[in-house]
């Protein structure tokens, strides 16, 4: 079996490993590193449950070779929260009850985080367009859009130094 030596950073920690060429990124994250917050659902890059960041770009880890993270900076859902607590997006998902079973939630949180980095104050249409590739089978889309708007608001309030309740 062909392997490639990969040096990468996952959630801020350096990782060095010999990875089989045919191993998918999601398999490496879940099975080798134990980062099971990243979910496998469709396996076809359609549903978004396996979304992680590779060099700040959201990717479907079910459709990326693990070898491709050589030299890259990878962030999974486990890498978002800090010792100070949840991120504004994570907190907004809690506050808006933007989940039911929770299986799709890590992927949604990652995609919403990516959106707000590029577009800090999106319209609801922009949120819906950005989330077209994320599926929630509990059909909880409305609270998810609400959570993104809420997170955007709390982030811009924090930015401008005003208190937001």
């Amino acid at each position, binding site marked *: *079996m*062909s392997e*490639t030596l990969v040096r990468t950073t996952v959630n801020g920690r350096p990782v060095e490993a010999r990875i*089989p*060429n*045919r191993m*998918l990124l999601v398999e490496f994250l879940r099975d080798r590193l134990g980062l099971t917050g990243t979910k496998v659902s469709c*396996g*076809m*890059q*359609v549903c*978004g449950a396996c*979304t992680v960041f590779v060099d700040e*770009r*959201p*990717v*479907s880890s079910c*459709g*990326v*070779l693990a*070898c*491709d993270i050589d030299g890259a900076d990878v962030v999974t859902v486990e890498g978002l929260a800090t010792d100070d607590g949840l991120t504004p997006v994570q907190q907004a998902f809690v506050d808006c009850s933007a989940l039911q079973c929770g299986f799709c939630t890590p992927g949604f949180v990652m*995609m919403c985080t*990516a*959106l707000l980095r590029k577009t800090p104050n999106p319209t609801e249409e922009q949120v819906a*367009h*950005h*989330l*077209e*590739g*994320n599926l929630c089978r509990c059909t909880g889309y409305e609270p998810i859009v609400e959570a993104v708007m809420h997170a955007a608001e709390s982030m811009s309030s924090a930015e401008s130094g005003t208190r937001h309740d």
Partner: protein
Amino acid sequence: MADFELRRPTSVAEAVEHLAEGGLPYCGGTELIPVMQLGLMAPDILVDLKRIEPLGGIREDAAEIVLGARVTHDETAASPLVRRHARVLAEATSRLGNARVRATGTLAGNICFAEPRSDVLTALLALEARVDLRSATDSRTVDVADFVEGPFATVRQEEELLEAIRIPVRASRSSYIRFQPGEYPTVTVAAVQGDGGCRVVVGAVGEIPGVFTFPSAEDVDAAEIAAQVDVTEDLGGREDYKRHVTEVFVRRAMAQLAEGSAA
């Protein structure tokens, strides 16, 4: 997925040597990796293009926009050059697939895969784009219209690398619309009105996008296009339905083109 050897060249010269040895080029992998997972392709050697600097970037060169093989859909959609001179392509690349596919997938990979419902292909045909192909021994430039032969089939030889996509910069008005109630678009329409006439391209309804040319935008006959376009019945709909949505969306595209500003 079957085992394969991974090569990661840093120059085009090195890459085409690997292709000559039977390697298969890949970059974003958004089409290739699923196909390999399904076992539909099992290349012995993958040639990763991501470390080849000259294949990145979008530039203007002698009245053409040149997009390197590594350029992603997101980069294209955000490019001021593309937005100014090839707006149908900016529109297509900002809407296709999903946000993750747009962040990693490349235009070059998209047209080499030649998926019949490709938004990129519809837009590039409307813009009369060409592609640069290079092998270890030769290079050639081919019209996109001649490059794609049919569904999942192109004239690219196995030892050839699609190095760049070239789009002529011309004064034109354009529009791009698509209808996608499911996972793939049911119909995509690109219309470009330039000095030489009006080109209307209808994609996704058949095995390959249909190109229709008229003396001017006023002459575009949506009913005629709908009657003539190649249609394949599939989960996107029956033949009569697909012809109907084609006519509707060609009319809408032309209305948008008439209303829109020059670009």
